[in-house]
């Protein structure tokens, strides 16, 4: 199935409405996923629609109090942009390698819905929205509504991922940790993103998300609520243990070629503890 290169966003949308296309941005994931053998053209299960270079899909903007990252914006642009919250910037900086960040996009990383997708935990803590676009119009979903499971998302066949948007929160503490197989060009064994706002010794905001330890990123608002409102001196060993216990059922990792379920779970809990202790 020969692919198509639309010249405009409208053309892309009308093509998407006409039949089943696979939108392809940078290609860093899909070109490998559909690779067959050396020197052969990757075999996409439906015709690829190459949207990486549509100008409407690139760029980082501010709109009122929201930050908008267009879906086909390369990761390296995000890494280098001053408005991007550091918890996301750090995650992007540690992704893959420069050559991949130069073409890999945020929309692609989100759309892949990989449990190990590195932009997901920060986007979860930023309460990001995913905006989908079709000829019928825009549809805005909370990121956790969009991600449905490993490799599954809520994009409809005629839609493309248009942009990621979120309010930039105020925070006094952030903690990002990628535990990978090595220091660069590594897939995550697990990852941790956390932000918190502490004022006058009181925790006013507290959000954490973990990647690669469940079918989709873990973020549990109910547990976070137990931390919000606490005085920092109340974060003692006993309290931390109870929070860890609360998280335990949500952290359901697997054994695979990169790590073990046991390590992923224990290390996740240790990172939660470490973030709480730092408040």
């Amino acid at each position: 199935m020969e692919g198509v290169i639309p010249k405009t966003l409208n053309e892309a949308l009308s093509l998407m409405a006409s039949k089943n296309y696979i939108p392809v941005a940078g290609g860093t994931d899909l070109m490998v996923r559909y690779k067959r053998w050396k020197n052969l053209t990757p075999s996409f299960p439906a015709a690829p629609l190459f949207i990486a270079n549509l100008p409407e899909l690139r760029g980082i903007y501010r709109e009122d109090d929201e930050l908008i990252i267009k879906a086909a914006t390369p990761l390296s642009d995000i890494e280098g942009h001053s408005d991007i919250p550091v918890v996301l910037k750090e995650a992007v900086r540690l992704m893959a390698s420069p050559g991949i960040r130069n073409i890999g996009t945020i929309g692609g990383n989100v759309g892949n819905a990989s449990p190990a997708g590195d932009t997901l935990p920060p986007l979860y803590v930023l309460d990001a929205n995913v905006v989908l676009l079709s000829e019928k119009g825009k549809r805005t979903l909370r990121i956790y509504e969009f991600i449905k499971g490993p490799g599954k998302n809520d994009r409809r066949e005629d839609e493309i991922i248009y942009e990621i948007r979120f309010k930039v929160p105020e925070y006094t503490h952030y903690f990002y940790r990628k535990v990978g197989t090595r220091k660069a060009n590594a897939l995550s064994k697990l990852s941790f993103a956390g932000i918190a706002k502490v004022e006058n010794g009181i925790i006013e905001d507290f959000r954490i998300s973990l990647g690669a330890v469940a079918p989709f990123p873990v973020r549990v608002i109910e547990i976070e609520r137990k931390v919000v409102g606490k005085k920092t001196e109340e974060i003692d060993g006993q309290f931390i243990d109870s929070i860890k216990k609360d998280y335990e059922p949500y952290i359901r990792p697997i054994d695979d070629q990169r790590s073990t379920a046991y390590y992923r779970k224990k290390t996740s809990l240790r990172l939660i503890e470490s973030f709480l202790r730092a408040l």
Partner: protein
Amino acid sequence: MRDISKPVRRFDASEKIAGVARFVDDHYEEGMLYGKIVRSERVRAKIKAIKIPELPEGYHVISAKDIPGKNRIKMIFDDWPFLAEDVVNYFGEPILLVVGPEREKVYEISESIEIEYEDIPAILSVEEALLNKKPPIYGENNLFADYFFEKGDVENAFSEADEVIEEEFKTGFQEHIYLEPQGMIAKYNNGRIEVFGSMQCPFYVKNALIEEFDTKPDKIRVVQTTTGGGFGGKEEYPSQIAGIAALGAYKTGKTVKLVYDRAEDVEFTTKRHPSHIRIKGAVKNGKVIGIEVEIILNAGSYAGLSSVVLQRGMFAATGAYSIPNVRVIGKAVATNIVPMGAFRGFGAPQSIFAIETFMNHVAKRLGRDPVEFKLSHRYRKGDTTATGGLLRNEVRLPEIVNRVLSMSDYYSKKKEKKEGKKLYGIGFSMFLHGCGFTGNGEEILKSIARLKKRKDNKVEILISNVDMGQGPQTTLRKVVAEVLGIPYEDVIYENPDTDRVPDSGPTVASRTAMIVGGLLYRAAKELKEKWVDGEEIVVEKQYRHPEYIKWDQEKFKGDAYPEYSWGANVIEVEVDPITYEIDVKKAYAVFDLGTPLDRKIIEGQIHGGMLQGIGYATLEVMEQKDGRFMQRTITDYIVPTALDAPLFETDLVSQPYEHGPFGAKCAGELTFVGAAPAVCAAVEDALQIDLYEIPIRPEKLLTIMEKKNESEV
């Protein structure tokens, strides 16, 4: 006279930087066919039937039946077929070759071939192989090799001992990840087979093809193409690819290109042998007076070179230590996985990891400083090795060790452990490596090196050894030019072509500089005497073991190697206290590898060898599940990046070997063997634990630390 050690620019580097050097995949010719191997999808099975679809014009499917000669790759044992006949012994074993002009179609055909199997109970682990309850893969007991040797009286040592300490060690698989995947191009012209490709040993390939085609030596030509790394991975394995590609050319009369996809290369080519090593030591008055070492190697499904890998491992069993009473037992065990093969160090890294870690543990138990404890056991000139060989040359370990200690500031760092967010540790290793072929290998080979002085007074090196990155294009030119007193540029050294070069042996065992370089050195001396301007002169030298070397290959007694190189490493690590990730910060090394033939090339060998050793000890994880590797791509089997590599600091002590060119000894493998035990010692130091296994995974450290913390509460 020029200083032979003074670095010069590599002769082959400019064209590599520019991207004009042609590696095998860069060769193309009009009308050539592409090959793809159809592989077993079972771990162990009988092949019941093969269903091949109707083939379009110009496409062919080739099987073992097409082999005119012997369907066995010539190695030490004759058990490894080019293409499987009626049985497959590992997942991915080659069964058929599909060739044709369009890759897309070749792929399609290979995907549509149906093979019907009948499973045979597979032997998935060494334990299972030794139990011998399933039909054996090899012989009656699954042992490709079962060896034993002794020195002194071990039993007496154990009965006299104050304490007997027994420990077990494990090492994992390691994949070479040379940057250039394996590949061959074969041609068939007028009854002659020609093979071009990425390889370390042109004559191994040639000899394998002579038997495969049951033909005369002059009907086979093998030419090395510029080779992008080997590390042992292109020692014996290329014979199989060459044999398959050549069969394609022979059947079709056309040029056949067979280059591996990286995923094929990771999953289906040879690996370093995983090992289980048990060491039992008799300690008396603070010294190890006796030792029993049992080495069990997982050899995979065919014998390959495993028996010799095991021998080298066994001869290295006591490391750099003089222990009067020694018993070494070794087994190379058959299991249903890819055959294991040559990899830098060739059995020694497993043994050196085990003995070094054992010595550390014993020192700790005795309350002794590991460095001082090890030095007190060190080999000295005049000592006999584990096999009873005589150390005739000065062993400069004290100097080597002192230098590496002061360079790294070892003792003060060890004392004042840095207090930081990370756990700091420092580790030490000392070791040796036997130079050249093990045992009587060099004697059997009787390598020949040739120099040809042309009428234009340029001198050509004619040998079968290859540059795969380790530098002989430069070092051997220097040796010849230096002896002859001519400019380096006047020495020619082309990639070997078996039609033009004598058999100077394979490019393995760190033998090229010392053994082949030694032959060239002597040939150049003779050429210098015979030199007449404007005339063509050919000088040839054949290897002879120095007469004082005595070796009994049956009993494993005597000088297992003509000479040894020595080294000591110090490695600093930081371990993350939350995730237990290991960060290797600095690596220090001092080596005695004789006279360096080029200091920069040697330094490159040191950094590269040590980083491979660091990877071996830490992040290079390859595991088996249900007869397949879990890590099947370069995304999952990972090697260190620039961010994972430590800073290196190196120095040399040079005790020359009289028969090496300008006193050179062996280098390439020596640089690998000490890193893993030094990393292990550093992690032990950081976490105050004992370790017994590499790779040291954070997953393992977590469970060890949980146990440690429980017991401390």
